[in-house]
């Protein structure tokens, strides 16, 4: 849009890094395969050899060779593995909540084969050395490929830009001050100008701190009744409108994180109609819960930012997912320790975990009742990397194996068998869900298999 000088294309590092491991050789026999990207939809045998998909053929036509194991997929579903563009892995500095090993294990259990980690760690990820260190740790600890975002402003203090170009060279997939907004519009403008040179979409936590004013839940009848300070919906939409205007003016690319309210959806639609390069995400909890849930004052399950909003907002989010306004589903997986949550609601930290339950919760709450089709859920859980230049995983010959095997009939109670995450602040804790991930192949490796799931026919 700017028509500026050509920038010299530096080859950037691979965006995602994973712990090296044994590449899987496995025959998924007779499973229903559904890939919304390629359109593949039917019952097939799928052969993975040395971590790559080598053959897709009629059910019953393939046999495992050599060391390959055979998994009976009869009655089960195979999807392209999911991609979550918004997780908090709490590393470095808050490993008591989560680390790369536990966080990626939780992701694998949820069917994910790709993650983007937010930068609001302790200290925040603001220097190329921070990115280097994290990528090094991921090579040792991450069972699922992880990419890292860097902060927009140094230390997330909102005052000075980070060394964006060097951060990109070090491997930063994008930029975000998530956890807090970029309150200074001049800083955001300069970051978007810099983006024209170095790339990297800027992901924005949209909230006007003066309008939120220390609120603990959605402002509405329930906050009034519970005596909790309210966070009005407009705190989000006014910032989206502001930042979309800046992005439009600079020709920049922005991702709106965790959309929560009907006014926000309208702001995104208007910006998109104006030609702004704007993408957005929604969380499973905002699609499934409303502020009614806050009545139990259970901060571990029901306190997060943005807060759970009204039923009208929830319906609008579902509608926006259906009509394509919302690009992808992101969990905003935000682990916290028990002692940070087992305090009065207003004093509790904000955030809930979601990686292990994203698919099952949405399948149970939205697909089973017929609100959204299964293929749309699989698509929206899979395409979260696209705003950051990472294509969705595909089930096709020659592709690396990034797939999940799912039993759509299995019922389970969340938390009954504990969690893979180090933290237990799941918004689904105690919920009975239908649909369970049995096995996840990530980057060609077996990243997860359900303990009680007996693999193979032998």
């Amino acid at each position, binding site marked *: 849009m700017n028509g500026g000088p050509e920038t010299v294309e530096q080859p950037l590092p691979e965006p995602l890094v994973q712990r090296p491991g044994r590449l899987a050789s496995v025959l998924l026999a007779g499973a229903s395969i559904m890939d919304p990207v390629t359109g593949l939809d039917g019952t097939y045998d799928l052969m993975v050899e040395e971590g790559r998909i080598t053959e897709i053929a009629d059910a019953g036509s393939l046999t495992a060779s050599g060391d390959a194991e055979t998994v009976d997929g009869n009655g089960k579903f195979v999807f392209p593995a999911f991609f979550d563009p918004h997780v908090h892995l709490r590393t470095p500095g808050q490993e008591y909540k989560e680390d790369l090993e536990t966080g990626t294990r939780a992701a694998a259990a949820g069917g994910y084969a790709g993650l983007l980690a937010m930068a609001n760690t302790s200290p925040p990820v603001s220097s190329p050395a921070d990115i280097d260190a994290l990528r090094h740790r991921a090579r040792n600890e991450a069972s699922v490929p992880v990419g890292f975002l860097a902060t927009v402003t140094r230390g997330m203090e909102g005052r000075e830009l980070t060394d964006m170009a060097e951060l990109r060279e070090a491997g930063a997939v994008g930029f975000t001050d998530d956890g807090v907004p970029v309150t200074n519009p001049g800083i955001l403008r300069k970051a978007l100008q810099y983006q024209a040179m170095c790339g990297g979409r800027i992901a924005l936590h949209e909230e006007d701190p003066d309008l939120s004013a220390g609120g603990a839940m959605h*402002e*509405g*009848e329930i906050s*009034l*009744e*519970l*005596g*909790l*300070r*309210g966070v009005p919906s407009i705190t989000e939409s006014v910032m989206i409108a502001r930042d979309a205007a800046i992005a439009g003016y600079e020709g920049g690319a922005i991702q709106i994180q965790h959309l929560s309210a009907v006014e926000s959806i309208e702001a995104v639609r208007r910006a998109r109609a104006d030609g702004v390069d704007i993408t957005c995400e929604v969380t499973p909890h905002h699609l499934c819960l409303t502020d009614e849930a806050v009545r139990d*004052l259970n901060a571990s399950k029901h306190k997060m930012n943005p807060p759970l909003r009204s039923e009208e907002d929830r319906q609008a989010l579902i509608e926006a997912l259906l009509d394509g306004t919302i690009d992808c589903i992101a969990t905003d997986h935000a682990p916290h320790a028990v*002692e940070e949550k*087992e*305090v*009065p*609601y*207003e*004093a509790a930290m904000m955030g809930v975990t979601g990686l292990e339950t994203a698919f099952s919760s949405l399948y149970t709450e939205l697909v089973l009742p017929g609100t959204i089709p299964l293929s749309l859920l699989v698509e929206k859980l899979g395409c979260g990397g696209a705003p950051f230049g990472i294509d969705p995983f595909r089930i096709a010959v020659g592709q690396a194996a990034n797939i999940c095997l799912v039993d759509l009939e299995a019922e389970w109670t969340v938390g009954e068998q504990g969690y893979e995450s180090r933290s237990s602040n799941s918004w689904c804790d105690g919920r009975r869900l239908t649909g369970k991930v049995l096995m996840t192949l990530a980057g060609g490796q077996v990243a997860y298999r359900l303990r009680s799931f007996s693999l193979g026919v032998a």
Partner: protein
Amino acid sequence: MKHLLSIEDLDRDGIETILERAASFAEVSRREIKKVPTLRGQTVVTLFYESSTRTSSSFELAAKRLSADVVSVKAGGSSVDKGESLKDTVETLSAYGPSAIVLRHPHAGSADMLTDWVDAAVINAGDGMHQHPSQTLLDLFTLRNSIGSLEGRSIWIIGDVLHSRVARSNIQGFQKMGASVTVAGPPTLIPRGIESTGCEVRYSLDGLESADVVYLLRLQNERMGENFVPSIREYARLFQVNGRRLGPRQLVMHPGPVNRGIEISSDVIDSDRSLIAEQVASGLVVRMAILYELLTGPESVRIDSAPEDPVQIGEPA
């Protein structure tokens, strides 16, 4: 009823029962020996995370008048200052085997949380901006003694409704007893959507003459810094209840502490239209009644039993 967390825990009969009980304790309070042995051997803990004069002292004295042992913990000067969590503090105090814990806390829902952690009856003595049920009960007791039934009466609640737990409790309590409630104040201090609770909303004192009771809320000084009101002076001009604005039969209440000359003028406080002193006196006997109802009966408000005959309690405990 095992706990008193919210005025919503009580229906009209439950409220009447406590007010009846309070009336009989008021009679005890007029005797020479004001103490009854009802809770002898039981322990009542009061745990206050916010400063309080009226509520803490009256709960303490109420428990003592019922012969309970009382442990009073205030946040300042306790382990709370050293960063001990609410849960750990409460579990420590639970080791004394209290029958009741009276909690005042700056965060909404704190008293509800306690019920998961302790066996004792939990009494909410004010939680954040949420509820203050014992205040509502003492206000209802005060009104019952001064004007009788609230059926069909008009009560105006004036001032900082937004930040007030007393307002939230009292709107519900007054309505349960048949009164109609109007809230008045600047729009910045009236919560959005409060009409849904069945109150009328006014942004001025026009029409105040229709009120039987005028209930004033304290204007907290820090609200001015947060721009909820542009100036105390302007607020006082618009919303102060003074002799000029009050008719001769209208009664005035205030939960305290009062800002003389801001939400209420001195002449009104000191006039016979003010029930403020009666409210404080009611606080003691109503809190005795609350402790009695929670600690002596099965887990429900008993309607039939009277307190022990004061004649039988000759010896001071």
